[in-house]
């Protein structure tokens, strides 16, 4: 019954495959596909970053200097869609492709062809999302989607062709993510090495298992929501139009039923990765493995039932406000379990601070700020002030940049020697870390105060009292953006060469993936490892 027991494939170990472009187009190898996901993600990270630097440049001073408000609105929305769907999610999927088979002792993913298709859907989707910018240059349409990433009806019903492009892009991205999720669930449930019970499965795999389940539950709702938007736009339906018996708030319910779990979809793989990194650099076993597994599941379940806290000013009835407030506050408990376990893992270890550990510690502290401000945002009364303001912008960038992107960077530095067989430059890595952390805070800390002072988000120009904080934030953003070139440069150098990495790479590693050579052979775990029951 276990597919992974068929290990006597006569071709195993013969790493023959097409070369050149055909290798990448036709590959069904989890390592190749993982590499493609990660490369795509890095590329789109810079695309999304360039967009927001243009926005920050416009916001450096009050007045309209560089662009029209229409174009400003396009940049902010596409920045978010690119960063979420084309940078963060593919990075996590790249990690999953590379690491899950290595970690559970499987020769590949369960559904390799589906895997290839899942990746190759991404470039056309990203193209669809950004193409309206280019079409507008040729006088076709009025540019990309200008509604913000949330696509709220009726603004999105009113919008130009950019909205249609975004809808189809979301459909394709959704199909890709659902296929990826099916693949990961199938792999994790069927292809673990003998002796690796579910509760012994590495936490990174657990984080991804919960993510995959959340994706399968919520993405169809988003796909349905945007399809209803499409029919409202072109086929005369009135789902979101009160004049025809619809309700604009229905769109917000559908969107955020996906949108809130999406936050955990982006973060769970990173939460799964953190204990491995902490355990490695403290040279001490993970604290509370089982507790973290239940923590992931609890956050996943709670994440599905708190969506309306994203629109508490929309005029929800009082019982709904109270319910969404208290359920949101409840998420702090499982999240506290994770923080407790991370810090308990560090406690009385023998720590050293290589780049991945620096990023992990930076992640914990800054993500802590995201979590604590999230707790405050849950309060309906105070939320009336924070909502739609820069306070929220700062909050979710602490969650998704410091939590998501810095988590991904932790993983890249941690696994890069395993993937390439070379050590990256520790000096450059540390420089990258310090520049990132300082400039990140310089960018987003002032935005908390802007929000408190009353600056709404998504405005291309602002009143004079917001000038100084905006100027500081823009300076921070440019340093932050430029520092990421160091990251790309360090990765490039590491791929090209560098000191040989050992199989174990780091002194304190444990787990199947570190028993393979660095880099691992093209086909690994042809013979399944067996996990002893004692460990």
């Amino acid at each position, binding site marked *: 019954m276990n597919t992974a027991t068929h290990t006597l494939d006569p071709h195993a170990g013969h790493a023959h495959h097409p070369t050149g472009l055909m290798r990448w187009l036709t590959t069904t190898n989890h390592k190749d596909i993982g590499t493609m996901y990660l490369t795509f993600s890095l590329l789109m990270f810079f695309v999304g970053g360039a967009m927001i630097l243009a926005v920050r440049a416009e916001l450096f001073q009050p007045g309209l200097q560089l662009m029209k408000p229409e174009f400003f609105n396009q940049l902010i929305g596409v920045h978010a869609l690119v960063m979420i769907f084309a940078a963060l999610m593919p990075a996590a999927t790249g990690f999953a492709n590379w690491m899950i088979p290595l970690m559970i002792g499987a020769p590949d993913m369960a559904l390799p062809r589906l895997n290839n298709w899942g990746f190759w859907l991404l470039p056309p989707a990203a193209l669809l999302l950004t193409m309206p910018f280019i079409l507008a240059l040729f006088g076709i349409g009025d540019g990309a989607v200008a509604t913000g990433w949330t696509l709220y009806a009726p603004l999105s019903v009113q919008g130009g062709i950019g909205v249609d492009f975004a809808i189809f892009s979301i459909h394709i991205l959704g199909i890709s993510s659902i296929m990826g999720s099916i693949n990961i669930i199938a792999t994790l449930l069927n292809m673990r090495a003998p002796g690796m019970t579910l509760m012994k499965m590495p936490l990174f795999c657990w984080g991804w298992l919960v993510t995959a389940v959340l994706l399968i539950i919520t993405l169809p709702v988003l796909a349905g929501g945007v399809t209803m938007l499409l029919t409202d736009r072109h086929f005369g339906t009135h789902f979101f139009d009160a004049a025809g018996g619809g309700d604009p708030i229905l769109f917000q319910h559908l969107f955020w039923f996906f949108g809130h779990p999406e936050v955990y979809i982006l973060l769970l793989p990173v939460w799964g990765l953190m204990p491995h990194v902490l355990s490695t650099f403290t*040279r001490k076993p993970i604290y509370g493995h089982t507790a973290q597994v239940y923590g992931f599941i609890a956050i996943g379940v709670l994440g599905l039932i708190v969506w309306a806290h994203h629109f508490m*000013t929309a005029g929800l009835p009082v019982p709904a406000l109270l319910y969404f407030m208290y359920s949101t506050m409840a998420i702090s408990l499982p999240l506290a379990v994770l923080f407790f376990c991370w810090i308990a893992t560090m406690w009385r270890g023998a720590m050293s601070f290589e780049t991945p550990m620096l990023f992990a510690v930076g992640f914990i502290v800054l993500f802590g700020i995201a979590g604590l401000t999230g707790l405050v945002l849950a309060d309906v009364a105070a939320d009336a002030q924070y909502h739609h303001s820069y306070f929220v912008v700062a909050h979710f960038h602490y969650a998704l940049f410091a939590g998501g992107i810095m988590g991904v960077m932790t993983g890249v530095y941690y696994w890069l020697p395993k993937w390439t067989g070379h050590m990256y430059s520790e000096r450059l890595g540390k420089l990258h870390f310090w520049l990132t952390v300082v400039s990140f805070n310089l960018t987003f800390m002032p935005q908390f105060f802007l929000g408190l002072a009353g600056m709404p988000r998504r405005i291309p120009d602002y009143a004079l009292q917001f000038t100084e904080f905006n100027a500081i934030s823009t300076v921070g953003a440019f340093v932050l953006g430029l520092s990421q070139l160091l990251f790309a440069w360090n990765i490039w150098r590491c791929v090209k060469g560098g000191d040989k990495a050992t199989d174990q790479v780091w002194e304190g590693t444990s787990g199947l993936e570190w028993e393979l050579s660095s880099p691992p052979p093209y086909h690994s775990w042809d013979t399944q490892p067996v996990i002893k029951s004692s460990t």
Partner: protein
Amino acid sequence: MTRLNPRPHGRFFAGLSLLLATGAARADYTWNFPTPVTPIARDTLNIHNEFMVIITVLFVVVFSIMVYSMVKHRKSSGVEPATFTGPTGAFQWFWVLVPFAILLFIDFVLMGIPAFHAVIEMEDTRTKADMVLKVTGLQWKWQYEYPDSGIKFISTMSTPREQIEGKEAKGENYLLEVDNEVVLPVGKKVRVLLTSTDVIHTWWVPQFGVKRDAIPGFLRETWVRIEEPGVYRGQCAELCGKDHGFMPVVVRAVPEAEYAAWVDKKKTEMAAAAAGSDRAWTKDELMAAGKAGYEKNCAACHQAEGQGLPPAFPALAGSKIVTGPLLSPEGKLIPDSHVDRVFNGKAGTAMQAFKATLSDADLAAIITYERNAFGNNKGDMIQPAQIKALR
């Protein structure tokens, strides 16, 4: 600028945040909510300050433990790593569970109880309301109605384009100034009803602690009781298209006697405007009023010279619709004609139904202006009385 909050932990938080960012500290920076002037805003500020103290303490305590560990438990200082993987024994379990009990207490008692009362108060819009203000969001301005006195007007941003484009020095209330301020009496509970004619807007005045969405086709409500006379500024908080950043809310709170005087003055103005639709206007009068009305209501999309911003906002110069016939021979509205568009808008676009928001005289003037400006030179005109007959 910022007045200190009477509650001690407000001062504590303000001081703490100043301490955190001493390098950037400047007198005109705002570190907290602006001075509250309604009971809701005061509650909100107190809750916010209390929460900020709680999360700051949590942050400091938790990360002090982590930093202590990072300093003490280093490989370089020869520490042998421990091997524990979870709590063992009743004593350890007790200490592991204590932080969660504390968090549970913070969530649902320390934060949850004041939050509960604040929500109930915030949503109690109807008890002992003294008056009603109806707010309608339009792309990109606000319409205010006082059902008790029949007053109704549009409030548009008055900051000149030259200031936005950097051709003139920016004024003190840059982007937060309007042609017609909302006037409200001090000390009265005002029930605010909100709706929209096109997309979702959000009415927000930070000093009131009130932010509520205006949703097309639905009524939403909130309330304010302004305690101190003054001018309070806010703006639209929900992305509503091109000029989302340019639809401020300005409320002037005045003593009751002054408010009564303002109501009388407004009523007289409205009566004069209504009288305007009954007399015959000369073409020059219509063109002059039309140019002013066009610049206020139409130029944001169709641009000052009528060239538009195609494809979203079509040009009026040389437009087939604008240069088409005015009315049918019987004096009736022609579907999809110029007058029909201005009157009823175009569904699914930002073009709104102006008959709901503009007076007969304004509509007649703007239509006449559009037909004769931008080189359209149609030569015809429409009288306010004809507009009145079409309603």
